[in-house]
């Protein structure tokens, strides 16, 4: 039987990272994710991995760039202001086609904001937060269990496509204690097959170069189009979501992470009152599960998007729906949380408009 433990979300993330065979962590303290570097420093020591507390998030992301370029599974975690500082590095890493894993335990913004849970870094995560044309693969856990499971998935996707991957959590998920089932086989880092781009020293082979620039006329455009093809593959193959009672639904809520947990409670109230509400929970935010969203909009008239922001994911929902359905919104920016009753009230309001 799988082992079940009561864990902080942030600790579950650390265990998931170790379980995924990652033996390189570099990071800088920032609330509400401090439990990650603290616990990581202990765990990396136990498993013989590398733990580096850095001078800044700039240094952390660039240490990942170096470590991952040699083939190491490398990760960092931070929270919103720190992730902003990493955008330069992420752009270079995406431009050099290097796989790394970054966790963002999001807090209220903009600026220093506050340390309350938020979802206001959606745009930054899915639209490419740094300069240039690129995308990061973005996974949105909604529980400590998924914080444990997603690092492995994140590394696998990152390596499959040679692309940075993000885990977009929030302060509530990180600080909440939940049961976590430690399941699946832990990855032995030594078992990972060597790739033909790893920098290991050129003994017995041609030298290798990792770079994100190409000054030859037309070549950078070409390279960007090759990356576009990769992105199209990711969009086609990697859309992930959870559908809760979507088959008979007359109203669909779209929400991810913490908002999805709260929206599901609103859904239960609605169902108890005989209203057929469904929940579409995107698990990948990039690629956004546009296919299922579009499909549902062909038979469902009303959508309700719930976010802890001024409304960011709602743009992707609308793009997927292409004007076929009405899209309503509940938003709480700046570290505010929605609640189940509010979601239920909004559903009543939407129905009343018929």
């Amino acid at each position, binding site marked *: 039987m799988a082992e079940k433990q009561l864990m902080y979300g942030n600790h579950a993330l650390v265990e998931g990272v170790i379980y995924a065979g990652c033996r*390189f962590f*570099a990071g800088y303290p920032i609330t509400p994710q401090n439990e990650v570097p603290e616990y990581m420093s202990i765990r990396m020591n136990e498993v013989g991995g*590398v733990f*580096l507390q*850095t*001078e*800044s998030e*700039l*240094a*952390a992301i*660039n*240490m*990942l*760039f*170096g*470590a*991952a*370029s*040699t*083939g*190491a599974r*490398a990760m960092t975690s931070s929270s919103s202001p720190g992730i902003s500082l990493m955008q*330069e*590095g992420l752009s*270079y890493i995406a431009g*050099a086609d290097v796989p790394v894993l970054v966790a963002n335990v999001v807090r209220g913004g903009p600026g220093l904001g506050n340390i309350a849970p938020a979802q206001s870094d959606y745009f930054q995560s899915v639209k490419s937060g740094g300069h240039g044309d690129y995308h990061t693969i973005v996974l949105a856990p909604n529980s400590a269990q998924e914080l444990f499971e997603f690092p492995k998935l994140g590394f696998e996707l990152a390596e499959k496509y040679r692309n940075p991957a993000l885990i977009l959590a929030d302060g509530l998920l990180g600080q909440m204690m939940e049961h976590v089932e430690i399941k699946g086989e832990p990855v032995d880092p030594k078992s990972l097959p060597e790739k033909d781009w790893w*920098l*290991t*020293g*050129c*003994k*017995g082979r041609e*030298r*290798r*170069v*990792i*770079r*994100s*620039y190409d000054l030859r006329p037309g070549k950078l455009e070409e390279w960007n189009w090759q990356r576009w093809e990769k992105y199209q593959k990711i969009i086609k193959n990697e859309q992930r979501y959870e559908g809760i009672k979507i088959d008979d639904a007359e109203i669909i809520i779209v929400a991810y992470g913490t908002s999805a947990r709260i929206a599901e409670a609103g859904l239960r109230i609605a169902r108890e009152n005989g209203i057929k509400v469904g929940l579409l929970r995107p698990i990948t935010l990039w690629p956004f599960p546009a296919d299922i969203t579009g499909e549902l909009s062909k038979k469902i008239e009303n959508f309700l998007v719930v976010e802890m922001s001024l409304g960011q994911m709602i743009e992707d929902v609308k793009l997927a729906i292409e004007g076929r359905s009405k899209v309503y919104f509940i938003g709480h920016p700046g570290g505010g949380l929605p609640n189940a009753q509010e979601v239920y009230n909004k559903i009543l309001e939407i129905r009343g408009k018929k």
Partner: protein
Amino acid sequence: MKLLFGRPAGLTEIKQRYCSGCGHGIVHRIIGELLVEMNIREKAIGIAPVGCSVFADEYFNCDMIQVPHGRAPAVATGIKRARPECFVFTYQGDGDLAAIGTAETIHAAARNENITIIFINNAIYGMTGGQLAPTTLPGMRSTTSVKGRDVVKQGYPIKVCELLNGLDGPFYLERVAVDTPKNIIKTKKAIKTGFQYQIDNKGFSLIEVLSMCPTGWGVTPVQAKKWIAEVMAKYYPMGEFRNRAKEAK
């Protein structure tokens, strides 16, 4: 016929794009020679910066990575910690190392990270066309200090070896120059010393090289060499600032 002097195997066949009289080519050659002479080419990973030497990733005949402006010491740290068996060096200019990358430089030195940094100080931003660098001398003209560096408005230059020598961390710090054959020989000796300390797991080495930039300085290559001896080396005195191996004796 026996070849007596040719391109070292530590450099690629690619033609370098540096200006006439530039010091980069000399320092590249020294590193290229040492990669072979010290038998480290096949385990080396070099780090190219942003600046004139961005193309170093094409020139050194070993595994290379080109990285964001100023972040080379952080990338080097990641590589060395992930693969301690590899030989890791960065090649950085003064804007890269002493302006935008000051924090990464100081903290890699403070950690005594087991890497070697080759720091080219030519007192100017070469790649972008001759702007004021953190190392531009007081009174020295640049495209953003056309009447000369005014220390009241633009502050004073940063002396990197002296700055790092205030830290407990670094193992070896030396300032050299490539203006004369004698100094070039000294430069090779200093870089070799730094490389050896990394091989011996001693820790952080930084070799600062005073280097000519006739294009950025607006002078001839011959004048540039003279200027190093007569002006630059007086502000930036050459010598060994730190050598923990000698202290231990």
